[in-house]
């Protein structure tokens, strides 16, 4: 490889490249790092600029309030329900459809594909969808969150591309000649060979469920059904805390309460993002794989 010696110009540009990338690295990493150290530092020290590189005045008051708050617990539980069952529904609808569309002997394949593709570029919009949900009596039910977005053409295309490019046609032919039905072919041959794409799509869908707040904002008014993100919106952005949540400490003046509210916010960011960040290092390469498969579509 290194037959040709690097010129001086190459060395200089190399150096500049490393400097710039290191700068990008710091700009991306520091905010994430700061949230972590701020979540257990004294808010007074944060607000006076004393906490820059290391946590100071360590206190876990914020976390104590978060863990004791029933709304957060209920939001967490709801989000887990939406993520687990929602992802299951997503896969159950998306994968079989993608497999069927990958089969060239499916009569009407082009028509079905066009019907699906149109949904990528045209939609009825918010109000007609809302009215539909109302007519179907799905407003204010968990089903609204679980069913809406059950599948989408982008992910069907990703899975279809995977099936077309990795499942050898000969294998499927052989199975069919042996009298294997399409169901058996799909469930006992195709699915076991497709764990990679199932993992990728499951991760795509799961993260989308975990982070979604829009559906809940539009279709839910019952706070008992609210996912974590909607609770977070009230606390992080609208700064609406239960008076009790802040007053339970030995906090007599308003200033103290505001400080605790601040620390709670940092803690909330950590607590809500932690599950994704914990699994992120392990699943990161699958996501990348998914993006690549999506890019290969044609």
């Amino acid at each position, binding site marked *: 490889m290194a037959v*040709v010696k690097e010129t001086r110009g*190459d060395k200089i540009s190399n150096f500049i*490249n*490393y400097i710039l*990338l290191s700068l*990008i*690295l710091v700009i*991306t990493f520091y*905010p*994430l790092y*700061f949230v972590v150290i701020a979540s257990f530092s004294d808010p007074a020290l944060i*607000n006076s600029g004393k906490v*820059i590189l290391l946590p100071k005045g360590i206190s876990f008051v914020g976390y104590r309030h978060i863990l004791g708050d029933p709304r957060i617990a209920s939001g967490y539980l709801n989000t887990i329900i939406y993520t687990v069952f929602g992802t299951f529904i997503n896969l159950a609808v998306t994968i*079989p459809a993608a*497999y*069927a569309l990958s*089969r*060239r*002997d*499916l*009569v*009407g394949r082009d028509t079905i594909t066009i019907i699906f593709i149109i*949904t990528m*570029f045209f*939609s009825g*919009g*918010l*109000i*007609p*969808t*809302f*009215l*539909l949900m109302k007519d179907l009596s799905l407003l204010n039910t968990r089903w609204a969150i679980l069913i*809406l977005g059950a*599948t989408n053409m982008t992910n069907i295309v990703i899975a279809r591309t995977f099936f077309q490019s990795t499942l050898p*046609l000969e294998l*499927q*032919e052989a199975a*069919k*000649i042996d009298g294997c*039905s*399409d*169901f058996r072919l799909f469930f006992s041959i195709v699915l076991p060979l497709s764990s990679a794409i199932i993992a990728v799509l499951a991760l795509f869908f799961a993260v989308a469920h*975990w*982070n*979604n*707040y*829009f559906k809940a904002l539009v279709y839910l008014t019952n706070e008992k059904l609210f996912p974590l*993100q909607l609770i977070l*919106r009230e606390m*992080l*952005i609208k700064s609406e805390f239960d008076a009790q949540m802040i007053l339970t400490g030995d906090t007599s003046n308003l200033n103290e309460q505001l400080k605790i509210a601040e620390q709670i*916010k940092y803690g*909330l*960011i950590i607590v809500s993002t932690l599950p994704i*960040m914990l699994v*992120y290092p392990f699943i*990161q390469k699958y996501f990348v794989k998914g993006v*690549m498969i999506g*890019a290969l579509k044609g």
Partner: protein
Amino acid sequence: MELVNKNHSDVSGIGRKNKKEIGRHGNLHKIIKNWQLYILVLPALIYFIIFCYGPMYGVQIAFKDFIANKGIWGSPWVGLKHFKNFFQTYSSRRVIWNTLNLSLYSLAAGFPMPILLALMLNEVKNSRFKKIVQNITYAPHFISTVVMVGIILIFFSPTGIVNQLGKLIGIEPTMFLSKDYLFRHLYVWTGVWQGVGWGSIIYLAALSGIDPQLSEAATVDGASRFQRILHINIPGILPTIIIMLILNVGGIMSVGFEKAFLMQNSLNLKYSEIISTYVYKTGLINANYSFSAAVNLFNTVIDLILLILVNKISKSVSDVYLW
């Protein structure tokens, strides 16, 4: 096709019949034979018909005065009344302008950045350093919009970390959040921060597909690094760039509701009210269903026209296109 032919000749034994006959009865035969495949595709088909085509049918209320107890079909037609109303209001011009502005600014700042990052990463020989940069820059992609906006509000508050760091290098504190004209910059550049790493993946994939011999040959011929990037790497990923650009322009009017809505406050409304937030407020908060649906439809149609237009232009200028 092979699968089909084999099935016919070997399994069902109709291979000996002449072609014409197969053509006539073949399709029906294949449909019956593959009925299980239709069962597999059925849930998705039902979903799209009910939850995507259902609302498309309902979009007619944009041309009607929707009355709840008469339903979508029974409500009286009013033609383009709601569209006219929208264009006559003062807010329409502002809302359309804000939408265009925010999305063009996002595109101008957010589109080239991932390409640059990918080109830079591609030059890094130290694979460990490369991996670290990639892993860290991908991470913000997974932060939810609510949390992202929460971070923005805390970081850019008067006593927030941004002002604290500014103080260290002698910059006077700025009230970022109460200055309405800063809304756009905050919106766009935090978006770049969150999306640049993730966006670079697709270009890195394209770059890895370029034959390394091209670069080696160019180096032997005395091409500098800059020349190699300009004449080999960029042309190599150009089709990917064009496809991404077409898709991005097609969504120009659909600036995300989620982030703009959360970043809105009474102080920055002049800049932060965009079509999607306007549709949400007039439709769901004020219950002007027909009016809101009309505004939304206008938005969708503009996006569709842009997508078709850009695709056409790209098709005639280069040979890269979506369909």
